[in-house]
């Protein structure tokens, strides 16, 4: 549930930052209407899930290697929470796009690909994997939370639930009417990311303090 809610609370940010990739995919396709757009979105989300599961294994390895001692674990996770929260806040309140995740660059690449070569059926999946392998702040928060638990099955389950939470925001993506409100969604998402960042910073601070005390 925690992972799902974390995904839900950050889904706006994910949607905002993945949109530069997904939207060109949707717009580049000709004909097919909603069913085709749903297919592209599903392919994109499947790619994202694949990227997430790779990270789930990575998070488990990190957890086993570094976090054996309870005090050290608390301190490292707390520190990770704080660092990542700062990133989240910076992301939320930086007006320019130069700090946004690699999805922005991917968006430009996708546009070029679709302009010059047409849109192959596997392209949305590849785009999903690429965005899924991005170190965007909400994702790193999920990684830190997953690493904290230390079990491979739990780590995979955690990332799967996080994926589900964020994916709900993508459900309306095929419906073009909602794209007009994209700016508002992005703004609310960014502000919410800032608040979530502050929340995790405080949580990280508490964990770090507790971890240092028990070392």
């Amino acid at each position: 549930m925690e992972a799902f809610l974390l995904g839900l609370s950050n889904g706006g940010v994910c949607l905002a930052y993945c949109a530069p990739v997904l939207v060109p995919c949707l717009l580049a396709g000709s004909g097919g209407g909603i069913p085709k757009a749903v297919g592209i979105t599903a392919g994109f989300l499947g790619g994202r899930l694949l990227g997430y599961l790779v990270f789930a294994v990575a998070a488990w390895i990190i957890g086993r290697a570094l976090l054996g001692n309870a005090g050290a674990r608390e301190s490292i996770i707390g520190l990770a929470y704080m660092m990542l929260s700062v990133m989240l806040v910076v992301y939320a309140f930086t007006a320019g796009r130069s700090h946004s995740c690699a999805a922005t660059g991917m968006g430009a690449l996708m546009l070029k690909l679709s302009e010059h070569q047409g849109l192959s059926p596997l392209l949305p999946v590849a785009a999903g994997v690429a965005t899924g392998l991005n170190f965007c702040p909400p994702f790193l928060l999920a990684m830190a939370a997953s690493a904290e638990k230390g079990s491979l099955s739990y780590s995979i389950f955690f990332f799967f639930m996080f994926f589900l939470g964020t994916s709900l925001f993508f459900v309306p993506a095929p419906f073009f009417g909602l794209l007009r409100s994209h700016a508002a969604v992005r703004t609310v998402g960014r502000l919410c990311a800032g608040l979530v960042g502050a929340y995790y910073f405080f949580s990280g601070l508490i964990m770090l303090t507790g971890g240092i005390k028990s070392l």
Partner: protein
Amino acid sequence: MKRDTTNDTPAPKRRSFPKAFLLSLPMMLLTFAMLTGGKPISGPSQIVAFLLTYCFLNLFFFLMIYTGKTDRWRAPVFSAYSVAFVISFVTHLLEARGSMALSEANILRAQAPFCHMVIPMTLIPGALTKTIIFPGTIVGSFASISSMFILWIGASLSLGRGFCGWTCFFGGLEDGFSRLIKRPIIKRINPVFTYLPWALLLFIVLTSAAALSPVYCTWLCPFKAVTEYVQVISVKTLVQMVIFVTLFAGLVVTLPILTKKRIQCGLFCPFGAFQSLTNKVTGFAIRIDPDKCVKCGRCVRSCPTFSLDDESVASGGSRISCMKCGRCVDLCPKGAIHYHVKGTEPRSSGTLQRLLFLYPAFLFLATMGGGFFKDAIVRIIKLAATGHMI
């Protein structure tokens, strides 16, 4: 492009005294029934409190009808209501608990009074776990959960976000502070902050569901500073107290004074964002007649909750966050803005629509505020006579 609006402000739509009196008569009867509860009033202080409350409420309603101005007479009643609420609420707490502080024991005994701010946070946990995540009682006590839900549903269906402009017992405080100086010192606020209440709403709803506790009440409510505060027994509770006081001082006192806006309501309150959605179901709205509008921008500048901008004015209405306080209606030099009943002719004068809105809106204000007014007056009389309010 702005058009010239010099010295051609239309006179307010004044009614004749007898007609205004007749139109006020239903409110006089309703407030009499509501304030007495159908029972005789006993005790001199109770009689004085009743008479003052009754005359105060009905005088201001009569003035709304007589002068055709809404916000001018709403604002003093609304602000006085909030002050009366604080006096009455705090003295009740002191009587019941001996302190404004909410202790762990009070929480375990479910003795926390429920307020409407908690409503959005209770919905997801209520649906998922069939549990109300608030340490209050469902029925039968002061500010029980069920009574607040019933009031909120009724007010929301009738007024939409007009709830925040007419019924919320916190809103009057900053409404009052926002009128203390004549001209704003801070004039420019980044419009992106109008999205903050939505972000905060999303944040508190999700974190409250995750933590199964009302996160906003625990960490972010500015009004804890003037109602009940958490008992300071640790660093955590000290941090909470500092947050409450800082938010109250900043969002409810200082910024409203400097900007002449309801900053907490317009740029922070997650309940306000949630309540904005009810503007879609209520029958009342604010409409702007494009033929009369001269685009002077006075309504945009004066709107206390950032609910009007150039885009919304051009589209002939307010944004979803409008709380129907009536300030823009009062200030429009061309009479282009009016209350509107959805489904009726959009370019009508709005006189009847305004009346149809004023009755339920003022009745909610009088119903919610009447009890607090009376109690606060009784407490003040007691303070003058005995030196203490309890």
